[in-house]
């Protein structure tokens, strides 16, 4: 397994948004999806995971609805709201700019 990296401040939320952009997921599903997409390189801090979910829901970027899980249990599934979709686009663009700038600095050779 590759070496795990710590999550930068504020990136957990954009990862949650990204992970449900393809379809509704419950909390545990989101966790698995992020690990899967990162190839197991990102470890989600368990304590702050739900706090991030609550904050996103409070800001109306995601919406939770109760449904049935794959093993027939009641679970809360989250999906993006319109505002959430806009926010994801915005954050993704910002992230791109940010990494570019940081790479530029770190890659400078003089």
């Amino acid at each position, binding site marked *: 397994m590759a070496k795990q990296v710590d999550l930068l401040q504020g990136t957990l939320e954009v990862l949650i948004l990204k992970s449900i952009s393809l379809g509704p997921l*419950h*909390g*545990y599903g989101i*966790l698995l999806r992020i690990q899967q997409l990162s190839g197991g390189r990102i470890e989600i801090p*368990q*304590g702050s995971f*739900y*706090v991030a979910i*609550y*904050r996103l*829901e*409070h*800001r*109306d*970027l995601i919406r939770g609805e*109760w449904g049935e*899980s794959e*093993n027939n*249990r*009641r*679970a*809360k599934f989250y999906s993006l*709201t319109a*505002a959430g979709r806009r926010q994801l686009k915005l954050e993704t663009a910002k992230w791109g700019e940010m990494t570019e700038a940081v790479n530029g600095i770190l890659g400078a050779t003089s």
Partner: protein
Amino acid sequence: MNILGAIRSWWKALVHSSDLAGEVEAELQFHIDSRAQHLVDQGLSPKEAGRQARVELGQPSTQKEKYIETIGLRPLHEIVGDLRFGLRSLYRNPSISIVAIVSLALGIGATVTVFSVIYDAMLHPYPYPAPERICQIRVVSPGLSDQFGYLHHLSGGQLQELRKVTGIEDVIGIQTANVVITGADVPESVDVTRATGNSFQFLGIPPFLGRMIEPIDAPEGQDPQSVAVITYKFWQRHYSGDPKVVGKSIQLDHQDYRIIGVIPPRYRWMDQDIFLPLKLVRGDDFGHLVKLKPGVTASAIASQLTPLYRQFQEETPSEFPRQFHLHVTNILEGYAHQLSGTLYLLFGAVVLLLLIGCANVSILLLARGSTRRHELSIRAALGASRYRIVRQLLVESLLLSITGAGLGILLAYAAIDAVVKRLPEASFAPEADFSINIPILLFSVALGFVTGIVFGTWPALRLARSQPNDVMQSGVSRVVGDSHGKRTHATLIAGQIALTLLLLTTAATAITGFNRLMRMPLGFDPHNILALRLTLRPYTYTSLPQRVAYFQQIRQGIADTPGVISASINFFANPPHNGGRMPFEILGKPSSEKPQIGANFIDDQYLKTLRIPVIRGRNWTEAELNHGAFVVIVNQAFARQYFPDDDPIGHSLRFPRLIDPPAGMQAAPGSDGWLQIIGIVGDAVNSGLNEPIEPAIYVPYTLLTPPYVQILVRTQGPALTMLRVIQKQIANVNPDQQISGRTSDLETWIGRQPEWQRGRLVSILFGVFSAIALALAAVGLYSVAGYRIAQRTPEFAVRMAFGAQRGHLLRVALFSSVASVIVGLVAGSLIIAALHKPLAGLIPNAVQNYAVLTSVSLLMLVTIFVATFIPALRAASNDPMKVLRRE
């Protein structure tokens, strides 16, 4: 950020709080289970997997708090928690909480009620614009104080002169009369005021319906229009509030008037029924009000008016006293004068009550606070910030203050009507509109809050100065308080005792003053006397013999009624305010100045009916009365003042003005001649219940007879039960004869005198206040003593275990606050001694009385003793072993 999402989650958190907890918990539980399942799949045992998942994710049951914090509701939740804790801690010491709340409620309720009444009755009774500029002019004879000056009526011409004075903006003239509504099935007597056309503009009275009287209704030099404005009261009574009343006509004394408007209910000027436009006639005389120009003072206008009044005096010398000065007062001062002393005294008393209430609250909170240091130290040690502790105490104090103040406000609203109902009838303007005064309400509520907050958070402030460790390591679970806290506490208790003593002494003085007034000998017997007033219809019985014969016939009819002991005719002679003031002179004792004296016009039955004893000489006979003998009777005060050395009987006196009586009165020829004194009677109250009895002369009413008389009837049983029979007797003589004004029995009439009503009101209120104050002080001391002694139970138990006697402990407990009590009583006595002079001026019939102070102090000592003895006894009778085991 989308505000809708936020509102949705807040709504859910606040309103569906229990659903939310379940959902958050279920969601996390699902997560844990899924994680555990995952771990089992990786090869862990189910038990180990479940444990690890829980370690990773935490307790589902505490997840709600994370949610609450995330959506920003944590402070709110903490305050709700503080509230809940506050309620619990108030409930834990119910006696202290209840006493504190009740103290605040009573203090605030009483203050707000009494101040509101004072404000509305005295400071702001009138709806008229600029009432401070609307003035009356009093003519004051030398030797009289200003408020005893009389309102001198002026002729139409004189009023016109008055209007020209530079400092005066406007003048109105008024005449009042009792008039009969004719043309209807039943004659009805109504109070009518004729007022000059400018009156309604002058007073700024807007119409309620139609229009008010205007200058055009009474054009100069012409007869006024036959129009009438009716008051709201009359409109309701006579027309049942008929909205179409404007335009209707009403017949008064056989003359038709068209109703043009209704006066709004609040404008109860002179408490009349009907207003008619008035024409200023040269010869007639008129009551009047003047409005000063802005900025003109009353004393300036008095000196401007003096030359004019001197000129009036030259025109009609008989109308004026020889020497006089003018006193101008605005309409606000009259009522203020009557009641001000009383009301200020009461206000002082309620402020004391409020202070006693607040003192109670502070003492109780301090006592409780000093024992909470241990609790607070533990909380501080467990990591509560000072801010959290202060907030906790603040919430508790606010709970207490809000409850107390809320109850106080309710109390004030309930009490104000009760107090207003008991105010003396004529002690406030009929226009006064009583309502709760908001500024004073805010003030007293604020005072209550400040007291609660300052003394409620006191323990937290003291805690900040000490180390939690010290308190906890001292090993004592309850600390009685350090020396500093004790000193504050003792000072407060002493202060409260001093204030209570002051209030009780003042109250006792006021009440004994009223008792003295009640027991004052009247000089006549008011029991079972009916007083009624007969007024002749206009233009009937115009000659003196006819008139006397008619009155005598009615009197005889009443006197012959079974159940009637005697009946008497008089005018100007109904006690307790009697005697028409007239200048007189004594034969052989010429004086440059004719003194005025109260003349009472009576028949031969008056003295017998009122049971006023003839001291020397004799009463006149019926024959002498009927032929108008030139005789008089004087009272003892007269004899003392005018004949200090010799016997007045046989001397003569005369009333020079009797020959020129006011309109409507009939004087016997020669009645202004010398009248011989034939008897001296006992002094009877004649210038009010509170005032010394003045010299008085009794004159046969057949020498001067007005078109109205008073009839006093002594009955065997309760006087009012005879009223119907007596009315029938009068109707037998003349079915058209009206009984005018209010008929009452003399005792009730005297009871309605302002001095009595004021005395009774003051006594009742003071009685109530002092009972409340004493109860508050007693209950406060009891709770504090009980609480403090309860804190010392372990100490007592240890002492007893080491052999201390119960009696000794009882003394220790009892005398723990003896210093406060003594200091309080001494301070209270000193304050009373210092305030005695100003207080005596405010209390009618006050007596310098150390017996009052002594008995009140004794009462307080007994109360304090009982309040501390009960808890002390309880503490001393505990079984020491039980107590120590419990510790």
